[in-house]
């Protein structure tokens, strides 16, 4: 199976472990990820308000490259990149005034978008196109006894009229994936709440409070760690977690692991190979998994 692949800026930079793990998992499952040539940033969730037509146009630049590759799906490991591309394609189709301005901008460039290609989340692709059987048969190190809180966040689910993969109020994709690894998925009330990352540029304390809600929610259901589907949730819940612990004076950790990092561990890769954080490694050791 050949798919266009869009890692996004964060998985290409400060959370490169997401890109590393995703490529390893895809390889094991026989999925060929072909990186979109010379892709650009999706706007990071902020450009659309400053320049609505520019946001749509630069996302269509990526999707038009995907169409040139002869495929319709561009998989990404990042919920914000997913959201940004899908919203751009949606607005381009729905909003005639905006489309006029976008068409003016793409005139005379290489960008040519027929409306066929769209972004997909890697979790959707794994469950729907690769399928549970193939994933299950790749598991070499079952994560038995590990309780994993499934954290979905926002942008992979909402708005559901544009994202569309699952019920935004009762998502189960991550639980399905976690079950395949042999670990026990645990849901919790805050699993569809925001991690607070989009607030980190304007109201850091507010953002960290939201991150605490997620960590505490996972802790309250006795999870050993939490799994999430987004590069920016990763920055907030993994990279920045120590700041949440300092702000709230916590003496416990709630390691946050990206979905394909967890799969990679179950597939037999070492924690170092997928650059797992030290707090997550500690948990896996305690549980006797590594």
């Amino acid at each position: 199976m050949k798919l266009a692949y869009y890692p996004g800026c964060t998985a290409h930079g400060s959370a490169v472990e997401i890109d590393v793990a995703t490529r390893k998992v895809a390889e094991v499952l026989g999925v060929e990820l072909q990186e979109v040539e010379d892709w650009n940033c999706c706007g990071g969730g902020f450009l659309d308000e400053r320049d609505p037509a520019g946001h749509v146009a630069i996302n269509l630049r990526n999707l038009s490259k995907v169409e040139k590759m002869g495929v319709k799906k561009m998989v990404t490991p990042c919920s914000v990149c997913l959201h940004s591309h899908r919203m751009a394609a949606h607005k381009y189709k729905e909003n005639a005034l905006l489309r006029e301005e976008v068409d003016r901008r793409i005139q005379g460039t290489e960008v040519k978008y027929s409306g066929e290609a769209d972004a997909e989340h890697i979790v959707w692709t794994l469950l729907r196109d690769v399928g549970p059987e193939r994933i299950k048969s790749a598991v070499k190190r079952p994560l038995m006894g590990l309780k994993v809180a499934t954290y979905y966040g926002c942008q992979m689910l909402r708005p559901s009229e544009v994202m569309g993969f699952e019920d935004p109020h009762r998502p189960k994709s991550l639980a399905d994936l976690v079950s395949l690894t042999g670990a026990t998925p645990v849901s919790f009330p805050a699993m569809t709440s925001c991690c607070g990352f989009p607030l980190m540029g304007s109201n850091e304390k507010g953002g960290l409070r939201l991150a605490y809600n997620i960590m505490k929610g996972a802790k309250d259901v006795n999870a050993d760690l939490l799994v999430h589907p987004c590069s920016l949730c990763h920055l907030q819940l993994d990279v920045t977690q120590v700041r949440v612990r300092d702000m709230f004076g916590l003496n416990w950790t709630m390691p946050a692991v990206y979905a394909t990092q967890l799969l990679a561990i179950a597939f037999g890769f070492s924690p170092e190979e997928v650059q797992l954080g030290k707090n997550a490694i500690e948990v896996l050791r305690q549980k006797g998994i590594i």
Partner: protein
Amino acid sequence: MSQEIGREIKVRIKRFSREKGSWWQEYPVKVDKYTQMTEVLKRIKEEQDPTLAYRASCHMSVCGSCGMKINGAPKLACRTIALDEVSRTGSNTIEVEPMDGYEVLKDLVVDLDDFYERMYKVTPRLKPSQEVLEGKAQHRLTPEDQSRLWKFAQCIWCGLCVSACPAVKTDEQFLGPAAHAKGYRFLSDPRDTISNERAKVLIDSAWRCTYCYMCYEVCPRDIEPVEAIKLTRTFTDKFGPTGEASKLGERHSKAVEESIAESGMLQGGKVYLKTYGLVNSLISMMELMKDGKATKLIMEKQKKVKGLDELKKLLGERQ
């Protein structure tokens, strides 16, 4: 679908009274494919249990009375068909609870004073000029302006978006989605005369939204309040920041735009540095070192997009 007529489902309602506290109660109800959840509640109250309390009036998404949680989702009961819920969840039992975020008065009835206060803070009415009030001039609104504002004027004050909003729960200074939709509708109305006062109330609060799209998801009138919040942020340049969140946020958002224009990429480290300055950035880095997390941020080296000229054209730069 004739086989669906008279199908019996179970409705599990989270009850509450000041005297007895909180408990769950289950009722069997016969429904068909047209039965709205307001009708379900009416049948329970009329035929089985007159003590059940809930609000409902128009049964057509206009009055905004029947907001509640149905199988965990914040919804208007009148817009929810009972059997659609059965097929959504695959369960013959529908769970009904009061909306989150408000004090429960009895059963499904919540105290909406907090919601109304948020709405009054943004002065939810047009303030026309003196000339218009004295009949010496006319209100003029172009069809373009009308179609731009139309969506944000459709709020029915049901309170669902505020009940589902995570930022409202953790930040007292955030007005919440509905008030922002209403506020933007007047802030950008060319007939209004108090935009300076409106800006003072709206701008800093707009930077306290976390873009989770919950309000977009749950609004029964498709208002997309988060879009109003995004649009309100664009007024920061015109009126100036009115607090710490808008000051930092505007700087951050500009840095994101500059980063994309310069390299085609979002360079996280650079954006953070531009937003918070060197000293604060260093303090944050030191903190992250405790978890061994700072190295990747410092060492972050991203590619630059080759087709930068094309990208700049797409971003509206004149050739």
